[in-house]
């Protein structure tokens, strides 16, 4: 059970180095989960209506770190609206209401053990929430 939750793919992502910033970000959002203490900061620039130069930092558990590494790798080129949809899709997936194959990124299947671990889903969602919020912050 534990080896499923902390599968090799998750551990591989959790150990990845996060991308370094290429320039000054246009927007930045930090979020903290008050219960478990996970903290993420996401910095972005917006060019031609899509996110560029995604980078940030994470101080969190393996699941949060893996989610952050995955997001910074795959979020490049997303429009803010797509980031909001991605959060909704990943939430639905973790709640067991959406199959990974219905999402554009099959790699997120690595988080499927979380469907059985309700209390840990927030760890995965935190970076996705931060990316969704950084766009909203900029629009407002």
């Amino acid at each position, binding site marked *: *059970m*534990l080896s499923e*939750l*902390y599968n090799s793919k998750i551990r591989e992502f959790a150990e990845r180095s996060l991308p370094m910033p290429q320039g000054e970000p246009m927007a930045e959002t930090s979020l903290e*989960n*008050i*219960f*478990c*203490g*996970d*903290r993420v900061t996401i910095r972005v620039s917006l060019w031609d209506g899509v996110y560029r130069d995604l980078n940030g930092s994470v*101080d*969190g*558990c*393996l*699941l*949060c770190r893996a989610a952050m590494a995955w997001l910074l790798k795959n979020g490049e080129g997303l429009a803010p609206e797509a980031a909001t949809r991605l959060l909704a899709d990943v939430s639905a997936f973790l709640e067991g209401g959406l199959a990974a194959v219905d999402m554009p990124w099959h790699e997120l299947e690595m988080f499927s053990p979380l469907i059985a671990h309700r209390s*840990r889903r927030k*760890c995965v969602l935190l970076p996705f929430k931060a990316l969704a919020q950084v766009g909203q912050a900029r629009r407002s």
Partner: protein
Amino acid sequence: MSRATWMFERNSAQGQPAGHYLDSAASAQMLCASHDAMTLLEQGTRANVRRGSHRLAERADELYEQARGTVARFLGTSADQVVFTAGATAALNLLAHSLSERLGEGDEIVVTELEHHSNFIPWQQAARRSGASLNVWPVTAEGVLDMSVLDHMITAKTRVVSVTQVSNVTGLASDLMSIVRRVREVGALLVVDAAQAVPHGLTAEQADFLVFSGHKVFGPTGIGVLAARRGGLEMLQPVSFGGGMAAGVGLRESTWVDLPWRLEPGTPPFSQALGLAAALDWLARERGALEEVRRLTRVALDGLLARPRVRVIGPHDRERMGIVSFTVEGVHPHDVAQVLDNQGVWVRAGQMCAQPLLKALGLGAVVRASFAPYNTSADVEALLAGVDRSMALS
């Protein structure tokens, strides 16, 4: 009824919990005596209190007030100074809200960095409401109250000092004697959050006000206590309103019944009050069990300290009231707790509703193991084995 002491013993074939429950500081397991006291009422004497005149209501009234008397004896105060609330948080909110009406600009409220959010946020709100200043008493790098600034923190302007008796992160008791002395010198009020102290038999005898909750003292959820000494309840005006607390209701104004009932609007948790009283009766009798909890805590502490990659929060040479919080180098506390859960060891990981303390200590999160009279050496061994296992995640 079976002869089990704890409810979980009734729910397992072996009379043992299904795992190693080390999260009693969040919610303790329930005593059979507590459960049975409530069941007895629910089965034969269920009626609202302080309202009816039929014989069932009279009996329910009698039992409810007996429960209040039990709590009062346990705390060393009088029954008219005991208010039943929905929990410790509700008690602190009632207190902070009511006392804020006696405060104004120029007054100071003192809380500490040790506090649970329940004893922090209500005072932030009280300060905002009243115009008083909120002064936050810092901890040392070790995570204990910095007593060197005592006279600086509590001054002639201080009206209220609200402090935890036992930290829910470190399990260490505050130096209440020194705080009481200073509070008396300046004529302030001392509020003690005893939520983590009462389960270990500590009742802050010198406090003007004391709060605790039922579910941490092996009793039911949904009930807490606000108790006063030296007639402190006389200072409090109601902040919630409804039936049961009004002596007369006019179209524009209402008047209140006597204390403590005027601070208990609506139907009180009368069933839970009986469960709580039964739990306190048990605690008063079983002091030896509390000694064993402290011994087990010491064994756990020593075991954790023997592991070089483990950092225990707080000084290592002081007695802890059933709580040890720690981190494991290179492994996030949430991951440690997940490994422990997989081994059937149930601890808490995170910020323990004590964000100011964790921030002061530069910590994002901790693992907390907390012990109670139903724990054994096997629980400690399972904890230590699980911690060792978690190190493989780094």
